[in-house]
């Protein structure tokens, strides 16, 4: 996509069939390209629709952060993949898109991914007293407060 043509760190851009998959473009970027890419999207009138993470440690040994930018009228949806090492943290984009304030807190809460320069990185969905290091959406997560029932078992 010519939108991101001049930014270093944008590894590849694919055009996607919207009628099959629901979005238009997929970009794979590196860690240092995140802030310039986000600024470009902001300057061109996109909004941050969604941000999430995938736990790919078993297959590829990474966390994949997924950002989704969209325009308002005649929606053009861009998905951005950022693969990071599970031990590193990503830069926060809350100073560009305030929506990512809560979205990054949710990714931190559910996956344990740290965000640098975030205004207030603390848990958002789980209780404040939930043990540190317990991040529910990880594939190998075991609830430290469980009483041993499996999913769906009655007491």
């Amino acid at each position: 996509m010519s939108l991101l043509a001049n930014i270093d760190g944008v590894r590849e851009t694919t055009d996607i069939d919207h009628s099959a998959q629901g979005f238009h473009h997929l970009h794979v970027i590196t860690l240092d390209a995140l802030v310039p890419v986000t600024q470009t999207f902001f300057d061109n009138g996109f909004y941050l629709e969604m941000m999430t993470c995938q736990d790919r440690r078993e297959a590829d040994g990474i966390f994949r952060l997924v950002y989704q930018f969209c325009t308002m009228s005649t929606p053009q949806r861009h998905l951005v993949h950022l693969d990071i090492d599970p031990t590193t943290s990503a830069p926060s984009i809350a100073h560009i898109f305030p929506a990512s304030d809560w979205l990054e807190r949710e990714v931190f809460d559910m996956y344990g991914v740290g965000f640098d320069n975030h205004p207030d990185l603390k848990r958002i969905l789980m209780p404040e007293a939930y043990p540190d290091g317990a991040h529910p959406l990880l594939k190998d997560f075991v609830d430290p407060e469980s009483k041993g029932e499996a999913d769906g078992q009655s007491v």
Partner: protein
Amino acid sequence: MASRFDVVQDAESRDTYYLNMGPQHPSTHGVLRLKLHLDGETILSVDPVIGYGHRAHEKMAENRDYLQFLPNPSRVDYISGMIYNIGYCQAIERAMGIEVPERAEYIRVIANELNRISSHLLWLGTFLLDLGAFTPFLYAFDDREKILDILDRVTGSRLTYCYGRFGGVTLDVDDLFLQQTAEFCTHFKTRFALYEELVIDNVIFQERTVGVGVFEPDLIQKYGVSGPCLRAMGQANDVRKDEPYGIYDRFDFDIPTQMAGDCFVRSLVRMDEMRQSVRIVEQAVKDIPDGPFIAPKVPKRIRPAEGEYHFCVESARGNFGIYIVSDGSDIPFRLKMRTPSFANMATMPDVMKGTLLSDAVAILGSIDIVVPEIDR
């Protein structure tokens, strides 16, 4: 932030205090906690605390296959549960390439729009209850009961529907359903005059909502506001028109917009949306064809090809998106639900700064959030 009162510049030197608008509160529309920093009655800052209703729907999606996840989307936003349930079915149908018969598409449109009307009626009742008007609540629920009875007869549920299936719907609708729906539309069109008289033209309602909680235009891009809150700021964006799904492109309806962006015009937009929904339902009831109500050949195992899929629908609150990552197996690798109330709620710290506490209640009611949708 524009406000009718001067914001205290040097908060440290005044007597300010912290007030907890706790998780159990009749006006927060769910279990939502607002940590308010107040100077007298003026809000200096608000810190919403969410997560009291977190039920781990996204984790459940990773432990169940696609068919078993069907009851869940309805519970995410239980007030417009039909739209979410059918939206999830449509997402999987697009990923798998399943064709839906015509009659099922029309049934889905009728059910969706009736659900949208019932959601807006509930909003109307509870918003006015927050503002102190006890009467319109039961009037709105009277109309809502009629919709619930109509849908209950054919689906078996009143609130959390599991009516959609991949390829269509579970049960067929009969002529009595279409007749009852047509009668409801005729009756409901006479009720708008009642709501105008009782609510919209009421001086107290106008005093409490006109000019209150104005959304600045830059909030749209900063937070991704969607739904009636967006349309009350002059932007005519609706997923049903921008990215039509199902058969919405066949119906003739308008997108109501207003310019002011305050609580009052958000109410006007929702009243107009109900009118447009009635228009859609009447057209659908007239044009519904005969035929099968579910696709004849639905794959026994739902296994979308490896990759990512995104699908959005227009729920009563805004743009609801489902993002599915499939690894080619029966079970989703990751399923993320992008809910409109999450984005709309995130604007609250900006919008509520400098307002009075009673205005904050009006603003919170007017953006029509459902807290379980924020928490999932």
